[in-house]
Protein backbone atom coordinates (compact mmCIF):
# COMPACT_ATOMS: atom_id res chain seq x y z
CA UNK A 1 0.00 0.00 0.00
CA UNK A 2 1.12 3.56 -0.86
CA UNK A 3 1.60 6.20 1.82
CA UNK A 4 -1.61 7.72 3.16
CA UNK A 5 -3.25 10.85 1.82
CA UNK A 6 -4.06 13.60 4.30
CA UNK A 7 -7.80 13.26 3.74
CA UNK A 8 -7.53 9.48 4.16
CA UNK A 9 -5.86 10.00 7.55
CA UNK A 10 -8.70 12.16 8.84
CA UNK A 11 -11.37 9.77 7.61
CA UNK A 12 -9.43 6.86 9.17
CA UNK A 13 -9.28 8.68 12.52
CA UNK A 14 -12.97 9.55 12.36
CA UNK A 15 -13.85 5.92 11.51
CA UNK A 16 -15.45 7.02 8.24
CA UNK A 17 -13.67 4.46 6.03
CA UNK A 18 -14.89 0.98 5.03
CA UNK A 19 -13.47 -1.94 7.07
CA UNK A 20 -11.17 -3.37 4.33
CA UNK A 21 -9.54 0.04 3.77
CA UNK A 22 -9.14 0.55 7.53
CA UNK A 23 -7.43 -2.87 7.83
CA UNK A 24 -5.04 -2.01 4.98
CA UNK A 25 -4.20 1.32 6.62
CA UNK A 26 -3.51 -0.39 9.96
CA UNK A 27 -1.13 -2.80 8.20
CA UNK A 28 0.61 0.07 6.43
CA UNK A 29 0.97 2.08 9.65
CA UNK A 30 2.89 -0.79 11.23
CA UNK A 31 5.56 -0.45 8.55
CA UNK A 32 5.63 3.30 7.77
CA UNK A 33 6.95 5.69 10.48
CA UNK A 34 6.23 8.73 8.28
CA UNK A 35 2.52 7.92 8.03
CA UNK A 36 2.44 6.94 11.72
CA UNK A 37 3.75 10.36 12.61
CA UNK A 38 1.24 12.06 10.29
CA UNK A 39 -1.63 10.11 11.87
CA UNK A 40 -0.49 10.96 15.39
CA UNK A 41 -0.14 14.61 14.43
CA UNK A 42 -3.73 14.79 13.18
CA UNK A 43 -5.05 12.74 16.06
CA UNK A 44 -3.69 15.32 18.51
CA UNK A 45 -5.09 18.12 16.37
CA UNK A 46 -8.62 16.62 16.30
CA UNK A 47 -8.49 15.83 20.01
CA UNK A 48 -7.53 19.45 20.75
CA UNK A 49 -10.31 20.81 18.49
CA UNK A 50 -12.93 18.55 20.04
CA UNK A 51 -11.93 19.50 23.55
CA UNK A 52 -12.12 23.25 22.99
CA UNK A 53 -14.06 24.75 25.93
CA UNK A 54 -17.73 25.58 25.47
CA UNK A 55 -18.87 29.19 25.65
CA UNK A 56 -20.51 30.09 28.92
CA UNK A 57 -24.30 30.38 28.76
CA UNK A 58 -25.59 32.99 31.27
CA UNK A 59 -27.74 31.31 33.96
CA UNK A 60 -30.81 33.41 33.05
CA UNK A 61 -30.42 32.97 29.28
CA UNK A 62 -33.54 30.85 28.73
CA UNK A 63 -35.57 33.26 30.91
CA UNK A 64 -34.37 36.16 28.74
CA UNK A 65 -35.41 34.34 25.56
CA UNK A 66 -38.81 33.47 27.02
CA UNK A 67 -39.25 37.10 28.13
CA UNK A 68 -38.78 38.22 24.51
CA UNK A 69 -41.17 35.62 23.14
CA UNK A 70 -43.87 36.05 25.77
CA UNK A 71 -43.60 39.60 27.17
CA UNK A 72 -44.39 39.62 30.88
CA UNK A 73 -47.96 40.71 31.63
CA UNK A 74 -48.47 43.17 34.51
CA UNK A 75 -50.75 41.52 37.10
CA UNK A 76 -54.30 42.96 37.19
CA UNK A 77 -53.94 44.29 40.73
CA UNK A 78 -50.70 46.05 39.86
CA UNK A 79 -52.19 47.60 36.71
CA UNK A 80 -55.26 48.88 38.64
CA UNK A 81 -52.92 50.35 41.23
CA UNK A 82 -50.90 52.07 38.50
CA UNK A 83 -54.02 53.55 36.82
CA UNK A 84 -55.38 54.79 40.18
CA UNK A 85 -52.04 56.38 41.03
CA UNK A 86 -51.89 58.17 37.65
CA UNK A 87 -55.47 59.42 38.04
CA UNK A 88 -54.79 60.72 41.57
CA UNK A 89 -51.64 62.51 40.41
CA UNK A 90 -53.59 64.17 37.57
CA UNK A 91 -56.40 65.26 39.92
CA UNK A 92 -53.95 66.67 42.42
CA UNK A 93 -52.12 68.54 39.66
CA UNK A 94 -55.43 70.03 38.40
CA UNK A 95 -56.42 71.08 41.90
CA UNK A 96 -53.07 72.80 42.47
CA UNK A 97 -53.42 74.53 39.08
CA UNK A 98 -56.86 75.90 40.00
CA UNK A 99 -55.64 77.08 43.36
CA UNK A 100 -52.62 78.82 41.86
CA UNK A 101 -54.61 80.46 38.99
CA UNK A 102 -57.20 81.88 41.46
CA UNK A 103 -60.17 81.01 39.17
CA UNK A 104 -63.59 79.90 40.37
CA UNK A 105 -63.67 76.11 40.24
CA UNK A 106 -67.48 75.96 39.80
CA UNK A 107 -67.37 78.19 36.69
CA UNK A 108 -64.66 76.11 35.12
CA UNK A 109 -66.59 72.90 35.78
CA UNK A 110 -69.75 74.38 34.20
CA UNK A 111 -67.87 75.47 31.06
CA UNK A 112 -66.20 72.03 30.87
CA UNK A 113 -69.62 70.41 31.07
CA UNK A 114 -70.86 72.61 28.19
CA UNK A 115 -67.91 71.69 26.00
CA UNK A 116 -68.43 67.97 26.62
CA UNK A 117 -72.15 68.35 25.73
CA UNK A 118 -71.34 70.20 22.47
CA UNK A 119 -68.74 67.60 21.56
CA UNK A 120 -71.25 64.77 22.13
CA UNK A 121 -73.80 66.51 19.87
CA UNK A 122 -71.22 66.94 17.06
CA UNK A 123 -70.09 63.33 17.44
CA UNK A 124 -73.69 62.11 17.09
CA UNK A 125 -74.19 64.07 13.85
CA UNK A 126 -70.92 62.79 12.38
CA UNK A 127 -71.71 59.16 13.27
CA UNK A 128 -75.16 59.46 11.66
CA UNK A 129 -73.56 60.73 8.45
CA UNK A 130 -70.99 57.92 8.46
CA UNK A 131 -73.71 55.28 8.86
CA UNK A 132 -75.66 56.81 5.92
CA UNK A 133 -72.53 56.63 3.75
CA UNK A 134 -71.96 53.01 4.76
CA UNK A 135 -75.54 52.06 3.78
CA UNK A 136 -75.05 53.75 0.41
CA UNK A 137 -71.80 51.87 -0.17
CA UNK A 138 -73.39 48.51 0.66
CA UNK A 139 -76.28 49.26 -1.72
CA UNK A 140 -73.85 50.08 -4.55
CA UNK A 141 -71.90 46.85 -3.95
CA UNK A 142 -75.12 44.79 -4.03
CA UNK A 143 -76.16 46.46 -7.28
CA UNK A 144 -72.75 45.63 -8.77
CA UNK A 145 -73.06 41.98 -7.74
CA UNK A 146 -76.58 41.86 -9.20
CA UNK A 147 -75.25 43.19 -12.52
CA UNK A 148 -72.53 40.47 -12.57
CA UNK A 149 -75.17 37.78 -11.96
CA UNK A 150 -77.33 39.23 -14.77
CA UNK A 151 -74.39 39.05 -17.17
CA UNK A 152 -73.64 35.46 -16.12
CA UNK A 153 -77.32 34.51 -16.62
CA UNK A 154 -77.32 35.93 -20.15
CA UNK A 155 -74.01 34.07 -20.80
CA UNK A 156 -75.55 30.70 -19.83
CA UNK A 157 -78.36 31.23 -22.32
CA UNK A 158 -75.76 31.68 -25.10
CA UNK A 159 -73.36 28.82 -24.14
CA UNK A 160 -74.16 25.12 -24.41
CA UNK A 161 -74.23 22.88 -21.25
CA UNK A 162 -70.88 21.13 -22.14
CA UNK A 163 -69.11 24.46 -22.51
CA UNK A 164 -70.62 25.61 -19.23
CA UNK A 165 -69.22 22.52 -17.41
CA UNK A 166 -65.77 23.10 -18.93
CA UNK A 167 -65.87 26.75 -17.85
CA UNK A 168 -66.89 25.81 -14.29
CA UNK A 169 -64.05 23.23 -14.02
CA UNK A 170 -61.53 25.75 -15.40
CA UNK A 171 -62.67 28.41 -12.93
CA UNK A 172 -62.40 25.95 -10.04
CA UNK A 173 -58.88 24.95 -11.14
CA UNK A 174 -57.76 28.59 -11.36
CA UNK A 175 -59.30 29.29 -7.96
CA UNK A 176 -57.50 26.28 -6.39
CA UNK A 177 -54.13 27.31 -7.91
CA UNK A 178 -54.58 30.87 -6.64
CA UNK A 179 -55.54 29.60 -3.20
CA UNK A 180 -52.42 27.39 -2.93
CA UNK A 181 -50.19 30.21 -4.18
CA UNK A 182 -51.67 32.49 -1.54
CA UNK A 183 -51.19 29.85 1.17
CA UNK A 184 -47.49 29.53 0.29
CA UNK A 185 -47.09 33.31 0.44
CA UNK A 186 -48.83 33.56 3.78
CA UNK A 187 -46.72 30.84 5.47
CA UNK A 188 -43.74 32.54 7.03
CA UNK A 189 -40.62 30.89 8.44
CA UNK A 190 -38.25 28.10 7.55
CA UNK A 191 -39.48 25.40 5.26
CA UNK A 192 -37.54 22.25 5.59
CA UNK A 193 -38.86 20.67 2.40
Amino acid at each position, binding site marked *: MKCLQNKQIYLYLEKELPVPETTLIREHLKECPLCRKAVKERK*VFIKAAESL*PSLKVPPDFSRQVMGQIFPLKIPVRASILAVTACFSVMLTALFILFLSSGQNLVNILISLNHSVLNFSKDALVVSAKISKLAVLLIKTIFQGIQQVFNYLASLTSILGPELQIILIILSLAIFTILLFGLKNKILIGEHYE
Partner: protein
Amino acid sequence: MPSTTYKFKRAGCPPLHEDKELVKKTLAGRQEAFEMIVQKYQQPLLNYIGRTVGEYELALELTQDVFIKTYSSLHSYRPRYKFSTWLYKIASNYIIDYWRKKKIKAFSIDQQSKEEDSLPPIQVPSQETSIYEKYELSEIKGKIETALEKIPPPLRELFIWRHINECSYQEIAEIKDLPVGTIKNRVFQAKELIRKQMENME
Protein backbone atom coordinates in the same frame (compact mmCIF):
# COMPACT_ATOMS: atom_id res chain seq x y z
CA MET B 1 -12.36 35.47 22.20
CA PRO B 2 -10.91 35.13 25.66
CA SER B 3 -10.96 31.56 26.84
CA THR B 4 -11.77 32.76 30.38
CA THR B 5 -15.40 33.21 29.30
CA TYR B 6 -15.71 29.52 28.49
CA LYS B 7 -17.34 26.86 30.53
CA PHE B 8 -15.51 23.57 30.48
CA LYS B 9 -18.42 21.44 29.45
CA ARG B 10 -18.96 19.56 26.22
CA ALA B 11 -22.21 19.94 24.34
CA GLY B 12 -22.40 18.66 20.80
CA CYS B 13 -25.47 17.67 18.80
CA PRO B 14 -27.92 16.56 21.50
CA PRO B 15 -30.05 13.46 20.99
CA LEU B 16 -33.47 13.72 19.41
CA HIS B 17 -35.74 12.18 22.04
CA GLU B 18 -38.59 14.29 23.41
CA ASP B 19 -38.02 17.12 20.92
CA LYS B 20 -41.11 16.40 18.86
CA GLU B 21 -43.19 16.11 22.01
CA LEU B 22 -41.86 19.47 23.23
CA VAL B 23 -42.69 21.09 19.88
CA LYS B 24 -46.20 19.67 20.05
CA LYS B 25 -46.71 21.03 23.57
CA THR B 26 -45.34 24.45 22.57
CA LEU B 27 -47.75 24.63 19.65
CA ALA B 28 -50.54 23.74 22.06
CA GLY B 29 -49.65 26.89 24.01
CA ARG B 30 -47.45 25.50 26.78
CA GLN B 31 -44.65 28.02 27.22
CA GLU B 32 -42.59 25.83 29.55
CA ALA B 33 -42.14 23.30 26.73
CA PHE B 34 -40.35 25.87 24.57
CA GLU B 35 -38.23 26.92 27.53
CA MET B 36 -37.10 23.29 27.78
CA ILE B 37 -36.14 23.39 24.09
CA VAL B 38 -34.14 26.58 24.73
CA GLN B 39 -32.38 25.02 27.73
CA LYS B 40 -31.55 21.90 25.74
CA TYR B 41 -30.08 23.68 22.71
CA GLN B 42 -28.69 26.94 24.13
CA GLN B 43 -25.22 25.46 24.67
CA PRO B 44 -24.65 23.89 21.22
CA LEU B 45 -26.16 26.92 19.48
CA LEU B 46 -24.04 29.38 21.45
CA ASN B 47 -20.94 27.29 20.74
CA TYR B 48 -21.68 27.30 17.01
CA ILE B 49 -22.63 30.98 16.78
CA GLY B 50 -19.91 32.16 19.17
CA ARG B 51 -17.12 30.35 17.35
CA THR B 52 -18.50 31.45 13.99
CA VAL B 53 -18.85 35.20 14.70
CA GLY B 54 -16.00 35.37 17.21
CA GLU B 55 -17.65 37.81 19.66
CA TYR B 56 -19.26 36.55 22.86
CA GLU B 57 -21.82 39.35 23.43
CA LEU B 58 -22.86 39.36 19.78
CA ALA B 59 -23.13 35.56 19.87
CA LEU B 60 -25.52 35.76 22.84
CA GLU B 61 -27.68 38.26 20.97
CA LEU B 62 -27.73 36.19 17.78
CA THR B 63 -28.48 32.97 19.69
CA GLN B 64 -31.45 34.70 21.29
CA ASP B 65 -32.62 35.86 17.85
CA VAL B 66 -32.34 32.32 16.49
CA PHE B 67 -34.58 30.98 19.27
CA ILE B 68 -37.14 33.74 18.65
CA LYS B 69 -37.09 32.96 14.91
CA THR B 70 -37.43 29.26 15.67
CA TYR B 71 -40.44 29.93 17.85
CA SER B 72 -42.15 32.02 15.17
CA SER B 73 -41.43 29.32 12.54
CA LEU B 74 -42.44 26.38 14.71
CA HIS B 75 -45.69 25.86 12.82
CA SER B 76 -43.69 25.04 9.68
CA TYR B 77 -41.68 22.27 11.40
CA ARG B 78 -42.53 18.81 10.08
CA PRO B 79 -42.13 16.01 12.69
CA ARG B 80 -40.73 13.60 10.09
CA TYR B 81 -37.47 15.58 10.25
CA LYS B 82 -34.99 15.66 13.09
CA PHE B 83 -35.67 18.76 15.19
CA SER B 84 -32.02 19.55 15.95
CA THR B 85 -31.16 19.54 12.22
CA TRP B 86 -34.08 21.86 11.52
CA LEU B 87 -33.01 24.20 14.33
CA TYR B 88 -29.37 24.23 13.20
CA LYS B 89 -30.49 24.96 9.67
CA ILE B 90 -32.35 28.03 10.94
CA ALA B 91 -29.22 29.07 12.88
CA SER B 92 -26.96 28.56 9.88
CA ASN B 93 -29.25 30.59 7.59
CA TYR B 94 -29.52 33.29 10.24
CA ILE B 95 -25.73 33.63 10.45
CA ILE B 96 -25.47 33.77 6.64
CA ASP B 97 -28.03 36.60 6.65
CA TYR B 98 -26.07 38.32 9.39
CA TRP B 99 -22.83 38.17 7.37
CA ARG B 100 -24.67 39.45 4.30
CA LYS B 101 -26.22 42.38 6.18
CA LYS B 102 -22.82 43.25 7.62
CA LYS B 103 -21.42 42.91 4.09
CA ILE B 104 -18.89 40.43 5.37
CA LYS B 105 -17.84 37.79 2.86
CA ALA B 106 -21.01 35.71 2.76
CA PHE B 107 -21.36 31.97 2.91
CA SER B 108 -22.22 31.48 -0.75
CA ILE B 109 -21.49 28.33 -2.70
CA ASP B 110 -20.12 30.39 -5.64
CA GLN B 111 -17.53 32.05 -3.44
CA GLN B 112 -16.71 28.68 -2.00
CA SER B 113 -15.85 27.26 -5.42
CA LYS B 114 -13.58 30.26 -6.14
CA GLU B 115 -11.87 29.84 -2.79
CA GLU B 116 -11.25 26.16 -3.38
CA ASP B 117 -8.45 27.07 -5.84
CA SER B 118 -6.38 28.48 -2.97
CA LEU B 119 -6.98 25.56 -0.64
CA PRO B 120 -4.32 22.91 0.08
CA PRO B 121 -4.31 19.91 -2.26
CA ILE B 122 -4.74 16.36 -0.97
CA GLN B 123 -1.15 15.38 -0.25
CA VAL B 124 0.80 12.38 0.83
CA PRO B 125 2.35 13.03 4.30
CA SER B 126 5.73 14.72 4.04
CA GLN B 127 8.39 15.63 6.55
CA GLU B 128 6.14 18.22 8.21
CA THR B 129 6.86 20.12 11.39
CA SER B 130 5.20 18.32 14.25
CA ILE B 131 2.85 20.36 16.42
CA TYR B 132 2.29 17.73 19.07
CA GLU B 133 5.99 17.37 19.74
CA LYS B 134 6.43 21.11 20.26
CA TYR B 135 3.37 22.17 22.21
CA GLU B 136 1.15 21.14 25.09
CA LEU B 137 -2.50 20.32 24.37
CA SER B 138 -3.67 23.61 25.95
CA GLU B 139 -1.31 25.56 23.66
CA ILE B 140 -2.58 23.68 20.62
CA LYS B 141 -6.15 24.58 21.63
CA GLY B 142 -5.24 28.26 21.82
CA LYS B 143 -3.60 28.08 18.40
CA ILE B 144 -6.68 26.37 16.93
CA GLU B 145 -8.90 29.17 18.30
CA THR B 146 -6.70 31.83 16.71
CA ALA B 147 -6.36 29.94 13.42
CA LEU B 148 -10.11 29.35 13.26
CA GLU B 149 -10.74 33.09 12.98
CA LYS B 150 -8.36 33.34 10.02
CA ILE B 151 -9.92 30.76 7.72
CA PRO B 152 -12.81 31.57 5.30
CA PRO B 153 -16.21 31.70 7.09
CA PRO B 154 -17.81 28.88 5.01
CA LEU B 155 -15.03 26.48 6.01
CA ARG B 156 -14.96 27.74 9.59
CA GLU B 157 -18.68 27.03 9.91
CA LEU B 158 -18.31 23.44 8.69
CA PHE B 159 -15.32 22.80 10.94
CA ILE B 160 -17.35 24.03 13.94
CA TRP B 161 -20.32 21.80 13.10
CA ARG B 162 -18.05 18.78 12.75
CA HIS B 163 -15.36 19.16 15.40
CA ILE B 164 -16.77 21.52 18.01
CA ASN B 165 -20.47 20.65 17.91
CA GLU B 166 -19.54 17.09 16.91
CA CYS B 167 -22.32 16.65 14.35
CA SER B 168 -22.11 13.78 11.87
CA TYR B 169 -21.22 14.45 8.22
CA GLN B 170 -24.74 13.33 7.28
CA GLU B 171 -26.31 15.85 9.64
CA ILE B 172 -24.07 18.68 8.38
CA ALA B 173 -25.03 17.75 4.81
CA GLU B 174 -28.69 18.12 5.79
CA ILE B 175 -28.08 21.43 7.57
CA LYS B 176 -26.25 22.86 4.58
CA ASP B 177 -28.26 21.14 1.83
CA LEU B 178 -25.07 19.79 0.26
CA PRO B 179 -23.92 16.25 -0.61
CA VAL B 180 -22.06 14.34 2.16
CA GLY B 181 -18.97 14.03 -0.09
CA THR B 182 -18.78 17.81 -0.53
CA ILE B 183 -19.06 18.32 3.23
CA LYS B 184 -16.28 15.78 3.89
CA ASN B 185 -14.03 17.55 1.36
CA ARG B 186 -14.66 20.98 2.82
CA VAL B 187 -14.20 19.89 6.42
CA PHE B 188 -10.91 18.32 5.36
CA GLN B 189 -9.87 21.55 3.65
CA ALA B 190 -10.81 23.51 6.79
CA LYS B 191 -8.65 21.25 8.94
CA GLU B 192 -5.66 21.50 6.66
CA LEU B 193 -6.04 25.30 6.44
CA ILE B 194 -6.15 25.55 10.23
CA ARG B 195 -3.04 23.39 10.50
CA LYS B 196 -1.27 25.58 7.92
CA GLN B 197 -2.24 28.69 9.90
CA MET B 198 -0.89 27.04 13.07
CA GLU B 199 2.40 26.28 11.37
CA ASN B 200 2.70 29.92 10.30
CA MET B 201 2.18 31.04 13.89
CA GLU B 202 5.39 29.46 15.02
